[in-house]
């Protein structure tokens, strides 16, 4: 889904994010979210670019501050991810209705541990905090697609839909 970020792209993505959210302190997290969404992750060059563009505008932010945000919030990633990101909810409500079996099956099928990416860059497997779909647990998110009441038997079919 995500092409490798080239420098020119980064500049444009950052510029668009700043135009949309402004340069105030309350815009920092929305700007980073926007970049993460456009590029799939937040490369170091993007952080340098955000700093440069914001400071040019008279506000002040350091690279350390921005990196601190990118590493703190779960929905932001400082590492490149696979073409598709599988997010598995590992919280208690999904756990008691069969979530563990799904998690074990996912790790086994993809031969991945939590946070890792397959060598062909197709899949990244991560756990996620509760996404509030507890009435249809266990829940798996692939990119922006939600799957509820998932069973181990359904997994091959679900995963098979992605290129």
């Amino acid at each position, binding site marked *: 889904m995500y092409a490798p970020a080239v420098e020119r792209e980064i500049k444009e993505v950052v510029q668009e994010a700043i135009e949309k959210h402004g340069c*105030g*302190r*309350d*815009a*920092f*997290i*929305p700007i*980073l*979210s926007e970049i993460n969404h456009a590029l799939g992750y937040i490369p170091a060059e993007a952080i340098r670019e955000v700093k440069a563009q914001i400071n040019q505008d008279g506000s002040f*932010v350091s690279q350390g*501050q921005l990196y*601190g*945000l990118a590493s*703190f*919030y*779960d*929905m*932001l990633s400082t590492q490149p991810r696979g073409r598709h990101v599988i997010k598995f909810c*590992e*919280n*208690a*409500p999904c*756990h*008691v*209705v069969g979530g563990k079996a799904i998690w074990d099956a996912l790790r086994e099928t993809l031969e991945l541990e939590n946070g890792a990416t397959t060598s062909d860059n197709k899949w990244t497997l991560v756990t*996620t*905090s*509760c*996404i*509030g*779909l*507890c*009435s*249809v*647990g266990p829940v798996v998110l692939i990119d*922006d697609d*939600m*799957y*509820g009441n998932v069973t181990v038997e359904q997994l091959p079919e679900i995963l098979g839909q992605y290129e």
Partner: protein
Amino acid sequence: MKTKRAMMLVSTDPESMRLGASDLLKSLKEALEAYQLQDEVDIAEIQDIERTNILPIVVVYPEATVYGPVKPGDARYLVEEHLYKGRVAEDLLAPPKQLTGQIGSLRAHRGYNPAEQRIVLERAGRIDPENIEDVIAHNGYEALGKVLTEMTPEQVIDVVEKSGLQGRGGAGFLTGRKWKFVRMAKGEKKYVICNADESEPGTFKDRIVLEGDPHVILEAVAIAGYAVGADEGYVYIRGEYGHAYRRLQHAIEQAEEFGFLGRNIFNTNFNFHIHLHAGAGAYVCGEETALIESIEGKRGEPRPRPPYPVTRGLWNRPTTVNNVETLANIPAILRNGAEWYRSFGTPSSPGTKVYTIMGNVNFSGVIEVPMGITLREVINIYAKGMKPGSVLKLAQTGGSSGSIIPASLRDVPMDFESFRKAGVSLGSGALLICDQHTCIVDLVKVLLQFFRFESCGKCTPCRVGTQRSYEIVDRISKGQGKLEDLDTLQTLIAEMERASNCGLGQTATVPIRDMLRHFRTEVEAHIRTGSCPTGVCEMAFEKMES
């Protein structure tokens, strides 16, 4: 305006979308065109909160016939039967709800049984949340108009205080009193924040409000702004709730267009603006000072308190932070009065509570009932009983930081005071009902895994405490624990409770405390026999051999 003879409501909440609601919408539109009914019949998207087992649903008005589950392939049949030929499409009719009616005093909503009392969710699921005119037709912004034109800010606070409304985020602090503190705090500039960072696992009541009736929140935030003397408000919504974010964004635009937000609202000199702010994934940001830090573009690390946000909150100005469910009560209270609100619930905890029910029961979903009903009533009446073959072992209330209550406490009324007396916390209103196949050690391990991951790392008792307690419980779950470990856990949680900077570290201890209090025998069995009584925990190899 051209009159329509019928209206179809189609559920398009995330659950329905997963089950093909978008194709269904498309097929319905095509079917209407095929019968040339497109000018006579309207389609609106709604959020179904009652019937998670038969989604997606289609409700056809004026008859209010409920169909579900409806597949895209059923669209033509439905349109042909109901709208073209004018008969009920029998094959698609939703199964009727069973009337159990033990909560006799409640007025049943049309066709919805068992009876609930809906205040917070009054409009959710019954209106088109993307159409402000539909909202206005159902009392939307009436309370804001009344407040701005007939009441002083002090009178507003007085009504809210007299209603006895308590914060629904978990702590149960009196909302009116919080507003009064902000009103009295020194400073020209003040803020209102709606805490929509609903991250407590198992809790999705706020999502239902935000998606099903976003305008009730905007109206309430504006009223809060008038009461405390603020002209700016923020809705901080967790990053995971994309659907709710877009609904709110749309609602804010509409409210501005209709003059319910912006300058000179209702032709008074009251101005109010609402900013929508999305989080980026951090449980700790549900804590009010961490949330404020996050809006200010910082890591979500809670501030030491005092000073409290009511005196020094966002940008160091006096700020009231209120939960979504709390705010959703406000317009109804101001329309109907404090007396009316007090007629629901118990004297010490007036009003209703929205619960999310899940686990090994026959119905999972959202209900709104008066404060003070018991767990037994929730399970037997609203959850339609335990799943076949399941026996209640325990329930977990209020997400990860809530209490684990054993089956023996199922008759304690669920309100703030009774729960406090019984030593349990009501929390956010999530009710995870677990049967005999649930292992307490395994469950607590999952909860501690959550806390050690979500601890922000700022203060040592929480950062190290959540990690160490996880390691101990993990050892016990593998049959490698020692009896002394239980004493270590007791000491550890006492320290965490006393010394942690915020609620996260303090409440991370609750599952451990409840495990040792109510299920000690089961924990000791793991240690003494090296086996798990329920067969859930995987024992380490060496222990199995010996």
